[in-house]
């Protein structure tokens, strides 16, 4: 279990970004972290990774605290940031330096993954494109077998075939004793992968639900298929009017993540009350 308690942080003391934030993440899940630009998704990931220090509050990964920066904490957490920095050495040398910090690191899996991504161990990190570096780092993260893997916009910079490759690898290396937390704006890239959905807004976790509990209470459909009194949120379009409505039929619909995100941000209290009924 990963527990974040009373986390308070701001880039200046007067401007607080996260105020008493609580979040609990359970093993065996691929959490999707959604939020508007500037909502602080990257900051939250850095706080969880222990790369920033909160003013108050704790991040606890399996009994080890981020603030201690102990080897026991650090070997269970891997962070894939959006902006990457590497030394100017080959992939093979880099994995040689990095892997010893992660006792469960799987070298065989790592070299298989980079091969699937079309990289070779002798490639030099500084000569690689952004997308190629991203592929190398994703492979490192998945092969590290850390309890917690944080990914900040992992599909950014990946070409079309690599996005599919990425989804396959995540499905393959996810396990019952790991937690993946993926922040993204590219919800369509990850729609079939992320569950539960966590939404941050105005310094709080405003939403943290599994797809099961979402679809049990809510219906994602078009306006003509539901009673107007059941509609919580509507987006008018030329072809159809998309709605999020209370689920009165028991039909289990596919969650449209873009619609869900917009509905949560604009109809926060109604969405929360519909889900808690």
């Amino acid at each position, binding site marked *: 279990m990963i527990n974040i308690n009373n986390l308070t942080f701001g880039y200046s003391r007067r401007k607080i970004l996260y105020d008493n934030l609580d979040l609990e993440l359970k093993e065996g899940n691929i959490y999707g972290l959604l939020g508007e630009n500037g909502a602080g998704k990257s900051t939250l990931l850095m706080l969880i990774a222990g790369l920033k220090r909160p003013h108050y509050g704790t991040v606890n990964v399996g009994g080890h605290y981020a603030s201690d920066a102990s080897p026991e904490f650090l070997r269970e957490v891997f962070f894939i940031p959006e902006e990457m920095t590497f030394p100017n050495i080959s992939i093979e040398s880099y994995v040689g330096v990095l892997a010893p910090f992660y006792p469960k690191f799987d070298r065989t899996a790592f070299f298989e993954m980079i091969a699937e991504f079309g990289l070779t161990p002798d490639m030099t990190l500084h000569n690689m494109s952004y997308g190629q570096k991203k592929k190398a780092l994703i492979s490192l993260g998945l092969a590290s077998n850390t309890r917690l893997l944080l990914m900040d916009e992992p599909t950014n910079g990946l070409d079309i075939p690599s996005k599919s490759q990425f989804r*396959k690898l995540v*499905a*393959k290396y996810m396990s019952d004793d790991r937690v993946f937390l993926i922040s993204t704006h590219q919800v369509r890239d990850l729609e079939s992968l992320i569950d539960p959905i966590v939404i941050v807004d105005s310094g709080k976790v405003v939403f943290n639900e599994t797809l099961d509990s979402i679809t049990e209470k809510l219906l994602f459909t078009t306006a003509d298929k539901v009673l107007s009194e059941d509609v919580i949120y509507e987006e008018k379009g030329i072809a159809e009017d998309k709605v999020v409505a209370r689920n009165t039929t028991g039909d289990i*619909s596919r969650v449209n993540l873009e619609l869900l995100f917009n509905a949560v941000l604009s109809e926060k209290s109604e969405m929360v009350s519909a889900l808690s009924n």
Partner: protein
Amino acid sequence: MEFTSNKAIYLQIMDLICEKVLKGTWGEGEKIPSVRQLAVELEVNPNTVARSYSSLQDDGIIFNKRGIGYFISEEASKMVQNVEKSAFMKEDVPTFFKKIQLLGISWSELSDLYHQYEKQ
């Protein structure tokens, strides 16, 4: 696989498996991919596939041999057929009748068409 339908992804995966059973791609008694293999193949969360498998197991369409994997049940295609038939009767037939009435198509007209279709 593109999950284009409005149904939950776990339901679409169940449909996919039922279709394979009906077509005979996956025969009765045959071992099917593990949860992980299918999740990788379909690029979905393994928990979603696990959900589909557990529902299919509840329906008796697949069964689990501990430590070995999932298999298609002996009576699976009959069961799938029954499920699909009742869904067809409940959902498709009323829509079809409604359209017939709306367009003023007579029953004899339809029955002629059906006999022609049968001969082909």
